[in-house]
């Protein structure tokens, strides 16, 4: 015969529907005779009801998005700062040193190195030649570069979406992190070209960005395919 202190675990198991039929029948017999255990069970059920009524959502007292947004920019390797220097105004060939990123990821470093190389080339030209600044970007040429990569990258993205579920969690993390950096770089370059015709852009650099994007996607698809193939049959 158990005392009522030892019944506490049984009462919890009853609440959680974890008792065997025999144990439940034995506990039911005890409950008919023990007011204390009946009260404990009632309390547990009340607690369960009150717990189920807790809100699933508790809004913070302030909007956290501005701080999160700032962290996202920093977390992407300070790309906005680098991209600022990807461009040069035709009336302002000088500039400050290229900032060092705190979070440049391995593969993205290649893309960023291309950006830096492009910046140097653009800035040196006016200083050494003393001639006119670079011509405005050829919008048709940029569109041509984009169109070359549009179909292949779309196919790779679709393949990656299909295969992503098969990849172990975290296996694509670095690649996709890098890919987001390059995607954002392309988006910002394109957006600035549309917005401000006074800026110049190195079309070779723009093509290099697309090429890097394509290669990252290729690597991600290859990685997720290998993961799928390695699954035991």
């Amino acid at each position, binding site marked *: 015969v158990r005392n009522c202190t030892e019944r*506490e*675990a049984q009462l*919890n198991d009853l609440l959680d529907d974890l008792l065997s039929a025999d144990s439940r029948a034995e506990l039911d017999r005890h409950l008919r005779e023990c007011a204390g255990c009946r009260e*404990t069970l009632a*309390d*547990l059920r*009340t*607690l*369960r009801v*009150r*717990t189920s*009524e*807790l*809100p*699933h*959502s*508790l*809004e*913070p*007292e*302030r909007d*956290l*998005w501005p*701080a*999160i*947004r700032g*962290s*996202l920019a920093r*977390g*992407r390797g300070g790309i906005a700062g680098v991209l600022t220097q990807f461009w040069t105004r035709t009336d302002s060939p000088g500039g400050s040193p290229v900032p060092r990123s705190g979070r440049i990821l391995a593969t993205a470093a290649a893309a960023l190195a291309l950006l830096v190389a492009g910046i140097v080339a653009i800035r040196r030209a006016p200083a050494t030649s003393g001639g006119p600044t670079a011509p405005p970007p050829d919008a048709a040429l940029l569109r041509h570069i984009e169109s070359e990569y549009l179909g292949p990258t779309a196919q790779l*993205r679709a393949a990656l*979406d299909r295969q*992503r*579920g098969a*990849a172990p*969690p*975290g*296996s*694509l*993390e670095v*690649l*996709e*992190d890098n*890919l*987001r*950096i390059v*995607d*954002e770089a392309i*988006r910002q370059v394109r957006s600035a070209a549309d917005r401000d015709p006074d800026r110049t852009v190195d079309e070779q650099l723009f093509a290099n960005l697309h090429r890097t994007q394509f290669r990252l996607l290729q690597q991600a698809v290859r990685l997720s395919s290998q993961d799928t193939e390695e699954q035991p049959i």
Partner: protein
Amino acid sequence: MEDLVRQARRGDVAAFEALYRSHVGRVHALCRRLGDPGRAEEMTQEVFVKAWRNLGSCPVDRPFPGWLCRVAIHLILTDNRSTRRRSRWEVSGGDSVSQARGASPAPTGLALDLERAIEQLPPGARQVFVLHDVEGYGHEEIARLLGVSAGTSKAQLHRARRLLREALGS
């Protein structure tokens, strides 16, 4: 929702903001109940930054909210462990609801009474109670998350319920 996740995965910050707006309350609730309530907003921010960085591992065929909650739970539990190592903020030993962790505002109403009582549970009991009774996790999974046995998880749950019944006078 799936479209927003796809867009965010490709670096679309506006899409990620939409995901944040839809889920911030859910994540903040988890941070408040499972972690240090005084750091709930800070942890909520960290969860979303981590989610952004790890979107690539979010399966496209599974619901985003569940994935996000798992990211939050892992981050909160990791933070709890490191915080305990640093400052020992939990009140160890005694089987009474602690009065030492008063980081939350004065409660009003039954639900807030319960919120306050949960916040003041000893950390081990609180984590298991929130994961089991509030979030619906089973003991096996809780045991894996917390690095304890399923039996310990069960014992902590019973302890938490006993302490809450006493605290609430129910």
